[in-house]
């Protein structure tokens, strides 16, 4: 740790002026926030290489996972991340809860808030549910996906994956393919990738690319052949459950797959492929692509754990990252 440089007073302060920090949208982050979180994730990745993986860092803290939508990856990795940091974790799912009895989101939040959790991790089908959690509770709020809006920890773990596998994001060309319209992953990733200096092209059927999305700093193409130019092809899930009946975004899944499915023939050798999961094999992604050596899908899941550890840690610690990292290494 000899290279830890002296810190100026201003750097000791948390990056946001607000007393209570949240992670709700990538739009709220500056480049240095992302860099800090990625550096912290790398530190946690090293700590997980040890025999004893649990760190005492967040002992005595309470993290509530509030999942109103189905989730495997995100809920399990938040739970494990909190446990690895020794926090007390409580997971509440909407099925089997008072939500099924018609309880409003406000009342559910007031109930959870009464336990004074330090962090509420919330996933909800409605845009803005995390803002609600921030308004009605005193906890730090982490958005684990709100409707079609944002999924910031997914974007961060994708940045981390690209950083680790390709040595950086700046200057990369990423093609995001599929149902952008209904995708919070696409929105978060466009913001995160553009913030970190990548070039982003959205590729998909015209009705599934929102009008005016270029304003976010990306390009748009309706031609699947354009993915060949990218360094990385990021495949979005075809969200059948979000398709309004009769909305006719695409005539059929069959036509979608024929025209926009990511197949080995449409890729160039060496191109890396990502997918946020869960995959519809044979719909948006060919099984041969999903299982190929170039696929980063499993790597993404692995990244999820350390990135979520970093996010929880960062929200709950006021101090500068570097010094705290040193402490972790000492205790571990």
């Amino acid at each position, binding site marked *: 740790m000899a290279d830890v440089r002296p810190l100026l007073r201003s750097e000791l302060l948390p990056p946001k002026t607000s007393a209570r920090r949240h992670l709700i949208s990538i739009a709220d982050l500056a480049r240095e926030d992302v860099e800090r979180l990625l550096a912290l994730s790398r530190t946690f990745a090293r700590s997980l290489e040890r025999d004893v993986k649990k760190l005492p860092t967040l002992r005595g803290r309470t993290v509530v996972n509030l999942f109103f939508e189905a989730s495997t990856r995100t809920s399990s990795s938040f739970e494990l991340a909190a446990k690895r940091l020794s926090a007390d974790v409580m997971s509440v799912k909407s099925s089997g809860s008072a939500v099924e009895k018609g309880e409003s989101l406000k009342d559910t939040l007031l109930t959870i808030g009464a336990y004074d959790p330090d962090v509420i991790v919330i996933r909800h089908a*409605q845009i803005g549910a995390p803002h609600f959690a921030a308004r009605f509770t005193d906890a730090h709020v982490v958005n684990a996906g709100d409707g079609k809006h944002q999924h910031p920890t997914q974007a961060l773990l994708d940045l981390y994956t690209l950083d680790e596998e390709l040595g950086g994001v700046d200057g990369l060309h990423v093609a995001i393919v599929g149902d952008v319209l209904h995708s919070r992953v696409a929105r978060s990733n466009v913001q995160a990738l553009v913030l970190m200096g990548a070039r982003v092209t959205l590729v998909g059927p015209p009705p599934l690319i929102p009008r005016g999305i270029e304003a976010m700093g990306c390009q748009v193409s309706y031609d699947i052949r354009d993915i060949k130019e990218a360094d990385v092809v990021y495949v979005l899930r075809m969200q059948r459950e979000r398709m309004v009946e009769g909305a006719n975004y695409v005539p059929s899944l069959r036509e979608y797959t024929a025209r926009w499915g990511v197949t080995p023939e449409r890729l160039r050798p060496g191109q890396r492929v990502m997918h946020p999961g869960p995959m519809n094999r044979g719909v948006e992604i060919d099984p041969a692509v999903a299982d190929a050596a170039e696929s980063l899908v499993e790597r993404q899941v692995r990244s999820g754990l350390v990135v979520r550890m970093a996010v929880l840690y960062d929200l709950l610690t006021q101090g500068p990252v570097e010094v705290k990292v040193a402490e972790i290494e000492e205790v571990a």
Partner: protein
Amino acid sequence: MPLQVMLFGRNGRKDSLAFENVRVLDPVHGIDEPLTVRVEGGVISALEPAGGSTEEGKVLAPAFVDPHVHLRTPGREDEEDMGSGTRAAAAGGYCAILAMPNTDPVVDSAAVLGALVEEATRVAEVPVGFLAAISKGQQGAELTEMIELEERGAAGFTDDGRPVVAPGLVRRALQYSAAAGRPIAVHCEEPTLSRGGHVHEGLVSAEIGFGGYPSVAESVMVGRDLALAAYEERPLHLLHLSARESVEELRRALEAGVPATAEATPHHLCLTDEAVRSLDPNVKMNPPLRAEEDRKALVEALRDGTIGAVATDHAPHARHEKEVPFEEAPFGVTGLETAFSALYTQLVEPGVVPLVTLLERLSAGPARIYGLEPPTIAVGAPANLVLLDLEAVWHVDEGGFKSKSANSWLLGSQLRGRVLQTVAAGKLVYSA
């Protein structure tokens, strides 16, 4: 047609009042001078030259007419009722309001309308006119008994809250309205284009991920209904226009001589879809807030008279219904008590719209749509007056409303210009 035929309010005292040495601004008669205005027994009895200096910022003008109010009665009296809604109107400077028929039950029969008229004559602080539905139950299938409704007092016909989807039914309504003698008002929304939409389709919806409700969902219906009005040569009123393309359709129709009128709301004249970045359900309304170019087109149309009326589309909602995530929240915001101040602050103070124009669009403009006598300041005219303080600064907060609901898009805002007193049908109905 005289006001009293279509407006119903609590008859009562007729006041005698004097507004001494005040700047009088009457767009109807082109008055803008310091005067003393006397009211005897509810009627303007004298306009005298001011006998002293006028108070800075005070303006006496014809009171306002709101052509678009949701009184929520019958059915949702927890959100608004005849008493609270008309007290809110009085506080906003209104001497007459028109209530929309999308209640529960819908105002689609003489029985329902009759009950409302009876209630208004008992409790309405400010005279109320009632629009009846175009179609039974607002289901868009069968015409209501429009002549009977007109005889019972309907000021016009609308299925507001939802569009009349079938062009054939709009045509029949326009045809039949010739016999019923009252205008047809349409909520222009093509449902297959607006479906799933919560906000304007544009840069903000693309970025946030809200389902988009494109401008064209309104403008194609505006174009269609104007074509039908042209064909039938019948008056057509366009409710709450929001899009630049709709304004363009209207301009073309007016140039071609179509007997069309239109209204715009204070929120569409003041805000754009940038406001929905707050995710605040109090900026969710139908039609949605649109882009700056749309707002500019509406302001320009209001200024040049293409849009002749400001309508609040006052839509009260219970607190628990708006205290939910944006997409779950119902459309609609309140507006009666803030309309003048919002528009004065946003359009008159910065010099975008002259005060006299705003006063006309709040009063005579909307009155003419439904054939009401425009409120005016003239000897012998019934006293429908609003006293304004243009210098007043006020902070809009939840506690200050006469309305039962507080779902205002202006909560937390600081506004300039305020209603001090309102005289409606000869009675002082509000004093700040």
